[in-house]
């Protein structure tokens, strides 16, 4: 266990240093990322104005707060895409990773954790600018913010496991891009990314509660805005744990069977 911890700490430090080399690139990329929530924010503010100030309990200020916290969650949600995994398998880039006496999952996870740390630093000024521009109203207290901080990391872990496991399907099906598209389209709609879950029709809200997507995206945002009570928060963390466990099971199983099917270039 302590060996694994050392590996994580070292990988994180190495990745941190290399990410810092590309800080301008990261900064540009995060500014690009901020455009998406601003678009949603503008659309929903327009709708709220047309409806006399609020939609489904969301005022202008509440929408602004939602979509500003959105950016933090969006950055925290980023995981190794199945497309990247597909490319690894197709090009044989997985081979050197298999030679190392450590599961590639841990290498990737450490890499992404370091990337989050650098990104969060860059996010601070971006958020500052957006707060000045859009005048959000935050309702959450200190406890809400603390829970939010935890939920973004646990949500990231859950999503990272699920998406990594999804990438493993490439071992069996080579042209799989369309299936990934479907997964991420459902995620887009039922995670709270386009629109807060509360604004979805009832049946979609039920689906969102059962699927994992909301629990890594909308759930932390709602925590930060103080929209959830203790019971809701407990349910949220419970669902994260449940889906993380499901994902881990799938990951272990798929990896064990899949890696045997893998034949790299030249193998």
């Amino acid at each position, binding site marked *: 266990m302590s060996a694994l911890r050392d590996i994580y700490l070292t990988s994180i430090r190495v990745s941190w240093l290399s990410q810092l080399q590309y800080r301008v690139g990261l900064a540009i990329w995060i*500014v690009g990322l901020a*455009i998406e929530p601003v678009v949603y924010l*503008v659309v929903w503010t327009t709708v709220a104005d047309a409806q006399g100030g609020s939609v489904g309990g969301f005022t202008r200020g509440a929408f602004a707060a939602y979509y500003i916290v959105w950016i933090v969650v969006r950055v925290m949600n980023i995981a190794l895409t199945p497309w990247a995994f597909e490319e690894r398998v197709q090009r044989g880039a997985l081979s050197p990773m298999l030679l190392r006496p450590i599961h590639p999952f841990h290498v990737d996870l450490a890499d992404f954790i370091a990337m989050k740390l650098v990104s969060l630093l860059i996010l601070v000024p971006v958020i500052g600018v957006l707060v000045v521009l859009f005048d959000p109203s935050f309702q959450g207290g200190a406890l809400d913010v603390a829970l939010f901080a935890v939920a973004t990391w646990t949500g990231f872990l859950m999503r990272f496991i699920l998406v990594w496991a999804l990438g493993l399907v490439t071992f069996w099906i080579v042209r799989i891009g369309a299936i990934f598209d479907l997964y991420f389209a459902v995620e887009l*709609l039922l995670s709270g990314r386009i629109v807060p879950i509360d604004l979805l029709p009832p049946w979609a809200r039920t689906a969102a509660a059962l699927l994992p997507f909301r629990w890594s995206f909308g759930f932390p945002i709602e925590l930060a805005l103080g929209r959830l009570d203790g019971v809701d928060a407990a349910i949220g963390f419970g669902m994260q744990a449940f889906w993380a466990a499901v994902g881990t099971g799938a990951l272990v199983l798929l990896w064990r069977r899949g890696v045997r099917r893998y034949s790299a270039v030249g193998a």
Partner: protein
Amino acid sequence: MEVLRVASTYLRLNVLGELQYRVNFFVQLLQSVIAVATGLVALALVFRFTDDLKGWSPAELLVVMGVHVLVGGILQSMVQPNMQRLIEDVHEGTLDYVLTKPADAQALVSVRELRLWRAVDVLVGGVVVAWAAANLGHAVGGARALLFVAALALGALTLYSLWLILTASVFWIIRSGDLLELFMGVYQAGRWPVGIYPGWLRGILTFLIPVAFAVTLPAQVVARRLTPEALGVALVVTALALVAARLVFFAGLRRYAGASA
């Protein structure tokens, strides 16, 4: 006319290359349909609460979405792959092979690649526009359709120029892939009519990244919301963008040191 001949040769080669992978057509079609369906659901969610977004009706917004998909298809099939290759060539010094050819360098780097199947989005977007136009409540005649195509061409040329300028930054800063990401991010904003954005943001969208000319303008033609002046302005902007792109690209080329440097 030399340029046209070169372009059509590359076009033929690329089409022949892509035709070998016909299954990709269906994969791409599936992906396009998923993307459009997602967009439709997003529109439906907005219109659960209102039936008028800053004066745009559902059918009119659908036109905007269709044009966005259509223009996105043009960018992804014709512009993006060429710019990607330009970046790689500058990084690896293989741009030498372009520069030693006796043809215009800008024309060459702009026509080398074509992702035929990506152009499925042009079809899918066209279908959405046609379907939405049928629901507008007024007939869209032949003259208007021609004007629509003209507006599309202006928009596509403007976006091409802008993309070339961004890509040419690779001659000065090595990693310009992130700038292109930024461009695609801004392009996403074109899914909605530019008019709904607050003034400062509209300024950025209209003048820094002319999404407005590429997406909202053709949609306005179909929706009969266009003023003649706007088309004139678009003509001037497109011409300026093309000139600027050429100047920046050749300024960058002068900095290019080649493979052996």
